[in-house]
């Protein structure tokens, strides 16, 4: 039967249609494969997920989810690999929520410090160690701020943070008041780094939005199921903090005089690296619904945000994205540090290649990273060589920030699988299907920490999930390839050697790595560096360029392979 035409109202004017063409809905459909759609490989997985029955890690994160949908509920929390007792085995720290103005847990909550038993299992020593946290926990940042050889722990929280000093006997002391780095407000990621090249680790702490219980905004409708977690654009940005290490256990808040406080953001992730090769450590900060910062160290204690002109602040349309976890590494081995930031759905994650002139270009669109992440939301992430072939790869923990998202956007999911990208022959490849169960099973991924917990030279991955159990992934991928693990100890330089550049050579094979500070989201990593050799069984030499104030280069020969060693600044040989 013929339809008698009424005068058709044009569904879309040309302008409307063309705007729609430019919108994310269209862009998402450009034949982009969804990570969900990729089928798992039949070969043994690159990573094995270790169940809690084997690891004995029984702690879980409690988010305190509520009908009021307070914003902090879906964003936590972080995790860390660090060797708290200096026995050479990476222990695990997991951050929980806790009491605050909007949340009173029905039963006490605490963070968890798990001691590595060296047999694949861990033992909860939190209470004995004295590191339970005392508020709504966000992240863990590890650094030896007093240079005594023992890693200390800075715990960011809403709405005050804690500095735990490592006493060296398996216990920690809360020295926040003495140190003067409580950071009242919503602290998120933090990083220990030496910004003034005086040999001591200073502290940069990200701050999220201007937020308190009374300021919680109602978002959505008032009918059943119509409320949702607010997008952070409804909250005002805030300045982050920079603390100068005075060398006596105290810190001075230099946020204002350094210029850091002039940049208002909603900061989730931070990484410290020298992006312009001037010997000064810079900071790349991922901001949510605010421009990302590229805080360039000007020397003399001053920073200037160059994010906009560097091309890392906004999307191509000049709009801020939802920057989350970040990292930095010279992935193309051209001698210049590149950057990465995860965003949320319809934004694509950004892979910023350094143009060597103070600017960056986002190359994600040219790689599977762009197409894979278009509808995804990323949090913890890290560049690392998962298979020890010498090339830098990338792992990302994903999950949407809004628990209710699928009800409002059926094409999106709250739970998302992890992603693994392999770099080989100058190209990126999405190898998530080979990753294993954790890369197929969707989770509410948040913090991500790297660490070799079984000391086999294959760097493992720890992921914290929102309101759930952590995921511990043992790396199988590097088996068969050779490596050398190094722990760097600064003497003139900062003790953790943050900023050191390591080069290694075997025949015609040569690679370099920079030890950046921080990176990921709310998380902290094994301080050792694993140098991949591929099939090569010998190393000709390893050269360490120590960060300033040391600044010297040392070349080491006669190095072993397939084990961990310690290199100390100014000392010849290795231990």
């Amino acid at each position, binding site marked *: 039967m013929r339809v008698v*035409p009424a*005068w*058709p109202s044009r569904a879309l004017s040309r302008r409307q249609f*063309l705007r729609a063409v430019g919108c994310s809905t269209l862009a998402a459909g450009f034949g982009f494969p969804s990570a969900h759609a990729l089928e798992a490989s039949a070969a043994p997985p690159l990573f094995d997920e270790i169940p809690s029955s084997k690891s004995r890690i029984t702690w879980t994160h409690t988010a305190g989810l509520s009908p009021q949908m307070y914003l902090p509920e879906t964003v936590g929390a972080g995790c860390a690999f660090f060797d708290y007792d200096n026995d050479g085995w990476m222990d695990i720290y997991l951050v929980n929520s806790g009491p605050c103005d909007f949340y009173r847990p029905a039963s006490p909550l605490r963070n968890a410090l798990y001691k590595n038993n060296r047999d694949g299992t861990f033992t909860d020593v939190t209470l004995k160690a004295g590191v339970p946290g005392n508020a709504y926990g966000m992240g863990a940042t590890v650094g030896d701020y007093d240079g005594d050889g023992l890693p200390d722990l800075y715990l960011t929280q809403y709405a005050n943070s804690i500095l735990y000093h490592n006493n060296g006997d398996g216990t920690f002391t809360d020295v926040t008041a003495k140190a003067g780095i409580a950071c009242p407000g919503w602290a998120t990621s933090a990083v220990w780094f030496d910004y003034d090249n005086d040999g001591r680790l200073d502290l940069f702490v990200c701050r999220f939005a201007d937020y308190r219980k009374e300021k919680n905004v109602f978002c959505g409708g008032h009918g059943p199921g119509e409320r949702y977690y607010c997008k952070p654009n409804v909250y005002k940005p805030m300045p982050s903090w920079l603390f100068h290490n005075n060398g006596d256990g105290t810190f001075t808040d230099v946020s204002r005089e350094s210029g850091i406080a002039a940049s208002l953001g909603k900061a989730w992730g931070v990484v410290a690296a020298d992006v312009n090769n001037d010997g000064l450590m810079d900071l790349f900060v991922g901001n949510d619904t605010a421009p990302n910062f590229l805080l360039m160290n000007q020397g003399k204690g001053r920073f200037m945000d160059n994010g906009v002109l560097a091309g890392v602040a906004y999307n191509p349309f*000049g*709009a801020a994205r939802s920057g989350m976890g970040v990292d930095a590494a010279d992935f193309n081995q051209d001698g210049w540090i590149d950057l990465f930031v995860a965003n949320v759905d319809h*934004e694509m994650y950004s892979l910023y290649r350094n143009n060597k002139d103070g600017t960056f270009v986002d190359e994600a669109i040219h790689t599977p990273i762009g197409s894979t992440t278009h509808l995804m939301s990323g949090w913890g992430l890290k560049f690392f060589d998962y298979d020890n072939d010498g090339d830098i790869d990338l792992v990302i923990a994903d999950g949407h920030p809004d628990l209710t998202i699928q009800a409002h956007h059926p094409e999106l999911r709250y739970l998302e699988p992890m992603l693994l990208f392999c770099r080989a022959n100058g190209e990126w490849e999405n190898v998530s299907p080979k990753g294993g169960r954790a890369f197929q099973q969707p989770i509410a991924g948040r913090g991500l920490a790297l660490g070799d917990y079984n000391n086999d030279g294959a760097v493992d991955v720890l992921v914290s999930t929102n309101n759930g159990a952590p995921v511990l992934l043992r790396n199988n991928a590097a088996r068969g390839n050779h490596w050398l693990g190094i722990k760097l100890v600064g003497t003139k330089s900062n003790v953790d050697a943050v900023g050191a550049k390591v080069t290694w050579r075997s025949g015609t094979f040569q690679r370099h790595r920079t030890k950046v500070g921080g990176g990921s989201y709310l998380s902290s990593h094994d301080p050792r560096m694993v140098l991949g050799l591929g099939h090569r069984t010998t190393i000709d030499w390893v050269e360490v360029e120590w960060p300033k104030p040391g600044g010297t280069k040392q070349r080491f020969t006669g190095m072993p392979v397939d084990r961990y060693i310690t290199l100390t600044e100014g000392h010849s040989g290795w231990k």
Partner: protein
Amino acid sequence: MAMVRCAMAVDDERTAVDTLLTMEQELPDDPEVLYIATHFFSELGMRSAQRLHQRAPDSYQEERLQAETLQSQGKNEEAAAIYRKVLEKNPKVPGIHYQLGQIDLAEAGASGSTDAAKQEFEKEAEIDPSNASAEFVLGEFDRRSGEFTEAVRHFTRATKLDTGFSEAYLALGMSLAASGKFAEAKAPLETYVKMEPDDPAGHYQLAVAYARTGNKGGAAREMALRAKTTRARGLVDGSQGHSVQP
């Protein structure tokens, strides 16, 4: 108003149209005039549609109108079937592949493949090389895939076919900038910001182009305009929620 009603009542459409156009010219901001004009022009459109149906029921134009009606009602599958029927008999009719491309894009949704849509727009561009919109869409496919050289080719053509096509200038400028050709990007971006001074995107892209070509003053000015136009749009210098903004 009475003249218009009378003219419509006696089917004197010319008088009705002339009167409406005169009223719009003399009272361009009068909401009552605009309201009446909307109704009567719609009524005129309805009458033309009915005449087409009565006088040329087997024409492809009648079928096309049917399909457009269905498409406007969201009945994409039925509309597409009729469009394809039109093409079977009239394979060179301009505009049909474009409509099918629109439907394919709508059906692809957030995560479907857009290969079929792209093919439709390519066919449209072959049949009607003067279709600037088709060139633009093809350019967008390339730009979003990172194929900037091809994108520049399409957008350049779109701006030549329709010099008033503002979005094409922005897209051209962005594609040139993404290719590192900041000097070449300046001209189309300057054109865009003149045409669309309230769009922060144009000011941002132009600021970057100026900065990368050594024009610091121009860059600062355009960044200030970016911030001003962003605030004016109530965007609070942030993305509006989860979706990227066009």
